[in-house]
């Protein structure tokens, strides 16, 4: 860990190390909130990210069982819409999202 810490400080600076550590800490929390309550992925986000789960190989994660696999047609639609993902995300994602 000291070597990794020193490398991040050397390349990105101390503030970046602190902020990256903060993000990792936050996701340690959010991962547990989702997994320990069996939460399914929100439907709008599931559509917009359809197909990415296969590409990333995360359908094999145990926690994928919490979310229903979308029908083929919806997954295809999601893939077509992906280039517009960041715009669609702003429109469809809950305004209060984490």
């Amino acid at each position, binding site marked *: *860990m*000291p070597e990794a*810490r*020193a490398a991040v*400080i050397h390349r*990105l*600076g*101390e*503030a*970046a*190390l*602190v*902020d*990256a*550590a*903060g*993000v*990792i*800490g*936050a*996701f*340690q*929390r*959010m*991962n*547990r*909130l*989702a*997994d*320990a*309550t*069996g*939460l*399914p*992925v*929100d439907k709008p*986000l599931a559509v917009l990210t359809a197909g990415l*789960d296969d590409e*990333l190989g*995360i*359908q094999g*994660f*145990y*926690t*994928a069982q*919490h*979310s229903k696999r979308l029908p083929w047609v919806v997954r295809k639609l999601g893939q077509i819409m992906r280039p517009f993902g*960041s715009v669609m*995300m*702003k429109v469809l*994602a*809950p*305004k*209060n*999202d*984490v």
Partner: protein
Amino acid sequence: MSIATPDHTTDIDVRDDLIDAHRYYWDHLSKPGTWWSGAERVAIARETRLARQCALCLRRKAALSPYGIDGVHDDSGSGLAPGVIDAAHRIATDAGRLTKSWFDSVIDDQFTDAHYVELLGIVSSVMSIDTIHIILGLPLDPLPEPLPGEPSRQHPAGLEDIGGWVPAINPSKASSSERDLFATRRASNVSKSLSLVPEEHRSMKRVLAAQYLPIELVPSPGENGGRAISRALMELVGARTSAINECFY
């Protein structure tokens, strides 16, 4: 604030808002909660830390399935019920392999879904704060002395099934006393996950804003909240963390 690491590799300059948020959390932890006393809340936090070295948790983590490994957890002698200790240890060390049948097996009249949600808020908070300390090479904050008093035992209104194991508040049905939990009438599932215990939800929002981003900035992909790394890098770090934890959500 500059803090020297124990291995003397560097003095880390930690943002004051992050230090303040963590101090706020330890103060929050020490007080009687909604379903647990202050002493029980601090005991759950102690179990969360102990889980990292618990021999049973290590054996389960290494096993193909954690449910084939029986045994007794290393515990701190807190007097917490075995099911409560099991929940704290499993959420801390192997949350990605929890099942609905396991959840149903630990929940009963004494350890209700609301107790579980408050416990989850504590375990996930301690994990998040301790992780940051470990990464920065800083000593862990000492756990607070618990304050006396009784839990408030208040159930919020406007609960609904959101497809997970515990109910959550529907933001559009929140009562006036819980309307502050959500900025709008729409919220993601994970942002509602602690709302069965509104005080835990509030503390999560407060600490998350300093560790990651204020919730209202999250949907804007260009917003990094003034952090020293870009939003794209923040999301990459978060995604890598989730992949290591095998979190599909």
